[in-house]
């Protein structure tokens, strides 16, 4: 394809609490890292796609494009989305259409600036009736898990195994994050810590099952194939990206055990690229909770519905860092996932793409995965908005 979109450089800040930094400082840092990598000047940008979920609420910034224009002193077209994946999807369409050659895709979030109210704000991503009825950002994850175990008849010993498998997801992600200097949490945790937190919470999921609230920014520089090859030896191509949408109201959805939007987006993305899940060696899933990582493995097509917990449970004890599914290895959330890398909503997807980019180029340092013939060839990223209301699947490759 003539105008195949390619990423030439990526940048991000550390995720976590940036008490002393304004949002502009964060996006600046992410942009500078990325642009330095490919020796790009801001005047070379023909358009900017920036994402954030809550800046209007957390920082009273209602027209983010203008804020970015002032920061970059650029007057090019700019658009705001809610997630980096959404920004990337739109940017890819523009590159493919030949509208622009070089664009910035960025994301930013400053959630800790509204620490005392952010959990209420998060309910904006769900339907108002759930909020009015007393729902919390965590409740749907727990209900989905109960629906899942009910549907697949997971009880007794199997239920214990599933519970441990979910704890293993968290332990694995924390272990991965110790090798990621940008991660929100850079410490190992144990299965017991996860289980004890659940006991304290008096339910199936506890503190260590959920991603934190973080600040952070990420930036990607996107060009077409021809330009990419001039700018870098190792461009990473967007082989396919797809999105799908589901009801805001979780309770009204037909399927309470899986994310229909993910299933559709994944099917379309794989179909468009003529690839299958089995071709993916590194995967970033949107683990706002350990349940989401488990269910997403099924939704993306890596595991049969109702079985991911077994694959996780069987893969994890040796701390190999990958899941073994039908004899294939797949590395999931090598950066630590949302659980340990952090989850500044508007920037999170950028960190996922950042990770796949680094892994495919063999630049992931200590956490680099190896497949005999070198770095992985293909990877994919799943990003959600809300509780599975929107799903974006992006497939990346070295060729």
């Amino acid at each position, binding site marked *: 394809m003539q105008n195949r979109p390619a990423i030439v450089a990526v940048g991000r800040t550390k995720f976590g609490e940036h008490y002393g930094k304004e949002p502009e400082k964060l996006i600046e840092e992410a942009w500078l890292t990325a642009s330095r990598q490919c020796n790009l000047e801001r005047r070379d940008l023909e358009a900017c796609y920036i994402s954030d979920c809550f800046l209007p609420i957390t920082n009273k910034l209602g027209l983010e494009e203008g804020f970015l224009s002032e920061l970059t002193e650029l007057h090019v077209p700019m658009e705001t989305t809610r997630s980096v994946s959404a920004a990337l999807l739109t940017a890819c369409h523009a590159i493919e259409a030949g509208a622009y050659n070089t664009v910035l895709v960025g994301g930013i979030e400053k959630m800790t600036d509204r620490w005392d109210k952010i959990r209420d704000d998060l*309910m904006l991503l769900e339907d108002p009736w759930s909020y009015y009825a007393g*729902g919390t950002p965590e409740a749907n994850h727990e209900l989905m898990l*109960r629906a899942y175990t009910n549907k697949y008849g997971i009880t007794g010993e199997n239920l214990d195994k599933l519970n441990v498998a979910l704890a293993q997801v968290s332990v694995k992600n924390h272990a991965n994050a110790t090798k990621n200097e940008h991660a929100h949490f850079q410490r190992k945790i144990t299965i017991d810590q996860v289980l004890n937190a659940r006991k304290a919470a008096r339910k199936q999921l506890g503190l260590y099952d959920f991603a934190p609230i973080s600040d952070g920014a990420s930036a990607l520089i996107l060009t077409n194939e021809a330009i990419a090859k001039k700018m870098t030896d190792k461009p990473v191509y967007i082989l396919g990206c797809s999105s799908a949408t589901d009801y805001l109201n979780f309770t009204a959805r037909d399927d309470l055990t899986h994310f229909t939007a993910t299933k559709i987006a994944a099917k379309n993305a794989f179909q468009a690229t003529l690839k299958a899940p089995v071709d993916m060696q590194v995967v970033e899933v949107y683990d706002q909770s350990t349940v989401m990582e488990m269910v997403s493995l099924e939704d993306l097509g890596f595991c049969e519905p109702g079985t991911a917990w077994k694959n996780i449970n069987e893969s994890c004890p040796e701390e190999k860092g990958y899941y073994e599914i039908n004899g294939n290895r797949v590395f999931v959330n090598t950066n630590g996932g949302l659980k340990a890398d952090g989850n500044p909503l508007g920037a999170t997807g950028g960190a996922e793409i950042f990770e796949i980019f680094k892994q495919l180029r063999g630049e992931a340092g200590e956490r680099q995965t190896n497949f005999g013939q070198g770095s992985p060839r293909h990877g994919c990223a799943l990003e959600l908005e809300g509780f599975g209301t929107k799903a974006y699947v992006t497939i990346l490759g070295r060729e």
Partner: protein
Amino acid sequence: MSSEPIERRVSYLGDRLKSSRCRICGKEYFEVRDYCGNCGRKSYGKMDSVDLFYEKGKLELCTLVTEPTNKFMKLENYVYGIISFHNGKIRVPGRLTDQIVKDGETVDFSSLEGREVVPRFRRRYSVGRSEVVPTISLAFTLADEYYPHQDYTVVKPSKEYDVPGIVGYSFYTSRFRIREGRLERSVPFVDEDSVTAAVEAGKLALIHSGIDSALVGKIYVGSESNPYAVKPIASKVAQVLKLGEEDGDIQGVDAVDTEFACKAASSMFKDAASLVNYSKSGVKYAMVIGADNSQAAPRGCPGGELDTFVGYGGSAFIFGKQDVLAEIEGWYSCTSDTPDFWRRDGEPFPMHGGRFTGDPAYFKHVRKAATKLMERLNLQACDVDYFVTHQPNPQFPVKIASELGFREEQYAVSLQINKFGNTYSGCSPVGLASILDIAKPEQRILMVSYGSGAGSDAYLLRTTSQVADKRQRQKINVKYQAENPFVEYVDYTTYRRLKLGM
């Protein structure tokens, strides 16, 4: 800040739980929809509205919320989940209410999932003192516990009476009590207040009477604990219970709140009866509700003595001329300007006149109204089967009843102060309800209310055969709530927390 139009729309749908069903494919939706997603344009105008207010649902899935979002903090820990109606055709989010889950206490979700639940009208969450009070019925209680599910069936009236009277009544109080010595008093759950009690009482009275709510032409709500200084409880009751002819989102009913301390409701019995007796009014039925979350300062503070006796609850009476269960044979009211108990505007708790609340206030007015009415109707104490009066504490009603010549068996059944506390506007009405629950046809009841400020209304009622006929329609009667095995007793600290509410 709350948004007035959003509040109006949310409470319009959520208080009553309105939903819609496609006439073509049968698909159901929570919320009102103009068309069905399956059938598209051809379903436009073919959506039937479905009312979930009197339905029972099923708790499908649940979890425990231990860290609620900010506005729900006062609910502390609660069970939240998914509730389905009509065999899963509609699913809604909801929380279980009327449950105190203590810190550290575990909940067995699988013992809750699959059980039937009843939607309950409650406060939604906390807001600032100057804001609109948000309400919702996405709060549910287990149907096999304190509050069973009851169908609301409209029954065609069979007999027209010459004299107006009571055609249906109810008493509602919450599941919670505080027990001190021999005295039990009801306490609202944290999401209950005088408005929710009024709606519950009205709902139970409609179920008991079997009348069509559209035929109620007037609703009076007497209360002294309305969360608003300006804005009636009666309008909420009218909207939630669909009183009067429904036309779009407006009800063809006259609604008004009344205030006269503890006689705010009983005072309106004669007005309601007169209104339905006036043929040109066009009012077939009039509803009177007395509901209070009786206010009292904490013990040890000025006015805190009241906290020993105050309760929570509401009582509703529907007046009409068809299928009357107790006719009103006469009444007498008296009033004097006596400041024995008062609450200044903006003050959270009332004050009282100490020893001046007895002789120059309560006894004087109750005695006057009772003797005057008995004189007028040429009755002796022995001509009356039951006597009920206002019950501000356990001693006063007994003292005045004996003074008036009533024997214990004539008034004992009406003494509800020991079970529910003084429910202020609902107080003498709940006494009346407890008598009607057991009265035989053709019995005479003398009711004398008392309201500080001060005044009394005396009524003479005579039961008809309908009093027994209608009894089986009401499971949730006074005795049921007094002796319910699911009543939960709380300590004084919890009592104060619940009473102050959200």
